[in-house]
């Protein structure tokens, strides 16, 4: 099942299938390692519901839901 990162729940894992986004922000996400095929785990959500914190490539990254919306992932089942 495919869905964008902003719709993930805490504890869910997925594999990136595409990065939409535009310009500098997309470039930044690529630089930080959010590339196709990368496994991403939603670790937590800030107290006010946004931003979110994810684990990828062995480190923690926080980003806003508006940025997470541009990342599409294939949900990993039973994880």
């Amino acid at each position: 099942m495919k869905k964008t990162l902003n719709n993930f729940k805490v504890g869910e894992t997925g594999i990136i299938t595409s990065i939409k986004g535009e310009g500098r922000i997309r470039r930044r996400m690529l630089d930080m390692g959010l590339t196709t095929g990368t496994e991403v785990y939603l670790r937590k959500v800030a107290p006010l519901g946004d931003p979110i914190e994810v684990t990828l490539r062995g480190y923690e990254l926080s980003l806003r839901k508006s940025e997470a919306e541009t990342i599409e992932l294939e949900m990993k089942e039973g994880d």
Partner: protein
Amino acid sequence: MKRFALAGNPNSGKTTLFNALTGSNAYVGNWPGVTVEQRKGVYKKKGVEEVEIVDLPGIYSLSPYTPEEVISRNFILDEKPDCIINIVDASNLERNLYLTTQLLEMDVPVIIALNMMDIIEKRGDKIDTEAIERKLGVQVVPISASRDKGLEDLMQYAIATAHGERKGKTVLENESGEMVKGATKIYEKAGVENPMFHAVKALEKDEIELKIHEDLVKEVLNKYEDHKKPFDELSADGRYNFITKEVSIYDSASRRAQKAKLTGSDKIDKILTHRWLGLPLFFLVLLVVFALTFSEDLFFLNRWFGVEFEHASFAGTMFEGLIWTEEGINSPGVILANFVNAFNGVGDFTEDVAWGGIMVSINSWVEPLKEVPGWDWFPGFVNTIFADGVFAVIGFLPQIAVLFLFFSILEDCGYMARVAFIFDRIFRKMGLSGRALIPMIMGFGCSVPAMINTRTLNTDNERISTIRVIPFFTCGAKAEMLSAIAGVLAINFGLNAVAVSYGFYVGGMFVAVLAVILMHWTTLREKVPPFIMELPSYHFPSPKATAIHLWDKIKHYVEKAATIIVIAALLIWLFTHLSFTQGWIKEAAFEENALEAYHNSVLGQVGYVVSYIFTPVGFGAQTAEGWAYTVATLTGLVAKEVVPGTISVLASGDIEAFVQASGITLGGFFGFITFSLFTIPCFAAIGAAKGELKKGTLWKTICFWLGSGYVMGALVYVTVDYVWSLAITLPLIIGVYVLAYFYNKKKTAQERELEKAKEEIIESL
């Protein structure tokens, strides 16, 4: 002397390594034109040649995303360091090596310092450094910067590396690798230095590259256009694939195990970023920090629990009240400040003890000169330079240092990143990121460290608007001013002074929010900065790094503030002693009738003229002594503690009677306070802002403060004295915001179209 550049990700231990290599001879400044810290130092070791080391800002990539990235890339391209020491955090190998793969594309000798190997060993992991060396073609030296391990080896290898040359090499393979090789040939033919680096940037359609080599970029893109995937995605994929496939220590199984396990950081975060507890806990942490820095009744032990003292500590000595008073126990910050001030002999000290501090000694040496004709001015002059100038700066230091210390610890341990994470949602609405909350809150303590802290903010506009509203957060000196006039509020106007002070605190924050929004809509327009940020794991800050951090900041403050405050004190002294009509005012005249002597001085006369400007603020032509309030306001621009001091001198000690006699209205008095609270906080703050802003922006900011004080003062004056005026002012304010709102909407639409057009041009290349 050879020059090495230190490059690496933020939080990779780069600063620790820099400090360990250069020791105490580091020099901190700003990069020309931008407010990013520039640190330089020299590596000295017996029997080894001296090397200059430049600490490049921490970066994740060489894209032109942040000013730091542009600085680092320009430094390497233009200044051509003899060697790049690329520090790599071994516990976070994948993302750290991404930058390495970009650095390797430049024609510069590179050596990798593999840091935090101790953590890897503790984890039971192993890294095959030889494999990395083989794959990347550069030397890898394992080190532990925090434990001073491997540093001599590192420098020895680095010096050897620096004597050779290196050609750029890419890790990209297949399709993207072919593209890079082809594009590099085009750049080589054109005779460009660092051809491979520029070629990669051309393929990425990099903004800066497009500006400097427009023709070459077009040539490259003409040849290598029309791929399913954009090159920037191909290259990011390619780099990360190379790293995971060839050199990474993690396999997916070990990573899954790691994820399932709650790390120490997770456990702490469970509480600190908890849904309900996160916000209250932040305010609790703040309260503790401020209590430890400023409280004279630590943790309200006296007020709430009745921990009482009959006598002040050290009663009857120059250190009276050092540790506790009848009010309660002092905080460490206050104890330090008391100690320094007692030693200097400024503030509350007993004059009849044998040695009452340096100031008393100085005064007693110069006192006899009062009787010498032609030298009677000298004692007052000396007193001004030392008491109002030098010792005022030194007197501020202890509490500023303590506040700095706490915030450095919170920063270094990783908590501040979480604060930004928690508050981003709210601050985004105002056009800022969550990070901006920290300097604003520091403003309650002192504007100076708060403004220096704005360095950590992402964009110039974010920094400017934050610096501008920091003075609206009532600082320690303003609190002192409010408490000094508490008597006037209670006796002359029958008001509850605590409630009024509280009102000013809350009002200040409210105005700050409104001002930030207005600037975001009009003069400081920019897209809300994105928030893609690494959350480092919590760790104990190293005492050495914290000490160096603290020392840098204190040095910065003293250099900026000391000169400004001493000069200002001197000028005030000069202009209160000069008179347009009588030439030089004799010291005896001040002792006879201070009010009249000051009135005759240049400052008094100027105050008299300027006071008409303050008529709309309520303390100008309406009151008999408008000039006195004006002089107090003007001297208050130097430091807010001076305001009650000046009034007290002019009133010969009885402020309440003076205010009564001057016939000032309640609105006028409020206007007087409001102006001081919303204008230039002090000269020290101007000094700090000067260090953080460009010159033109600094002048605009000073004008902004003068304007905000004036407008707020006038508003408060007319509202208090003539409530009906709200019928005019309120619609006016709302009108301004409505106009600004629509202006912003229209501009945003225009900008969006412009950007679209720009992107289309880049796409069409």
